[in-house]
């Protein structure tokens, strides 16, 4: 199990506990984080699961694939810590992960 904190665009936050092996996107869907839409269900096709990863956690994540990298560069408000949450697989190492949900996914 790992704890993940979602910080919504309005400043409210939610801590959730998820099994290793699921994705951060699925954790958001399972716990009703409304700012994550995830239309393609994790196929890395829609970019409506965009999140900003807390800087201190970036070194612990695997590098994005080239497809993910290209998508991220074109989301609404890209930042250096932008990621597609469906591509982040939760592991024990990510226990405590903090991500911010953008204002809008389109």
């Amino acid at each position, binding site marked *: 199990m790992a704890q993940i904190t979602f910080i919504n665009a309005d400043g409210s936050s939610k801590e959730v506990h998820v099994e290793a092996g699921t994705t951060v996107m699925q954790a958001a*869907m*399972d*716990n*009703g984080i*409304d700012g994550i*839409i995830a*239309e*393609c*269900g994790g*196929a*890395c*096709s*829609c*970019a409506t699961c965009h999140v900003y990863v807390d800087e201190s956690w970036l070194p612990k994540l695997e590098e994005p694939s080239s*497809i993910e990298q*290209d*998508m991220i*560069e*074109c*989301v609404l408000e890209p930042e250096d810590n932008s990621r597609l949450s469906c591509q982040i697989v939760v592991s024990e190492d990510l226990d405590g992960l903090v991500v911010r949900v953008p204002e809008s996914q389109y």
Partner: protein
Amino acid sequence: MKDRHCIIIGGSHAAAQLAPSLRQNGWDSDITIIGAEPVLPYHRPPLSKTYLSGDKNIHDILIRPHSFYTDNDIHTMLGDRAESIDRKRKVVVMADGAEIPYTKLALTTGSHVRKIGLPGVDLGGVFYLRELDDVDRIRHYVGRGKKAVIVGGGYIGLETAAALRKLGMDVTVLEALPRVLQRVTAPEVSAFYTRIHREEGVDIVTDTAIGSIQGNGDVNAVTCQDGTVLDADLVIIGIGILPATELAGNAGLEVDNGIVVDEFARTSDHDIVAAGDCTYHYNPIYDRHLRLESVQNAVDQAKVAAATLCGKLEPYSALPWFWSDQYDLKLQIAGLSQGFDQVIIRGDIETSRSFAAFYLREGKLIAVDAVNRPKEFMISKRALMHHFSPDPVKLADDSLKIQDVLKP
């Protein structure tokens, strides 16, 4: 007002969005989802992709887990079919005769596969592919070195071919029209997919219609109308879908190539909304009525429908988009290409596996098919919303950044 009840008929993408969106919009009374399939709403697209290939299981593809529905007080009646709607008495009548009263009703009945009446279509090993259960039954006929015939060269047929190929089957795709994907893409894109499937070892046969299916209990061959006989251990028919409008039609709601809804997802009875594959609706970006078969439409229209039921009228005006995964090809489609008068190809469509096809009409960009080109897809989505007229020469020039070419 806690004694109200919203019933959602159909338990798939649209329903799985509509119910939580009702809660988000402040609906504090009962919500019930009635779904004929005996499973919680799941992602349907993987059925012809990662679920068929075995890379994902049912838990991976559920849209939300069971706990989400209980936590949000959303009742589910799964494996149950709504038989009719009595609008005068405002009740839904179930297959066993039980009546469930509603205050508001949402129809998310989706679509059915289009069936063909052919000799042999009822043999074992002959399937349509729409539901989880279809794929679970298809599995019994899958095997390395066995032969599969796919009837219909649309996206689902081609994805199925790719997944079965991955599982080691010998695959033939039969298409009655002169090219695969004929109804949805430009000839260049059809030629691209034909090339890739052949490179991957799939036999693509066009201009050839199926005539009959032979077998003894289980299928063993398919005979084409031109007399050719193909050995087959498995036949999957994917020749399109029809909107599920029977409930709506029998209840006297307006139906025309789908359940007719206004921009707020209301049917001709304003206590009843509809969303997803089953609707026929107006799209302001393309200024015409459409019936769409996509997750995007199911999700976005469901949000509008939920808002409407909560008294918030927000017109539906989303850009249609779609995707298809085959082999190492990630196709992302934005917009609708029907009616194009010019196609511009960016990248090497002849020999590589990465390009974008832009569809223009009277100089305006109306759609893009982007294969392994996420930037072209993402940037086009925005340009499409603005009816942008790109410079065709620059668009084709792969050395220019797409961000600079499609800058509105």
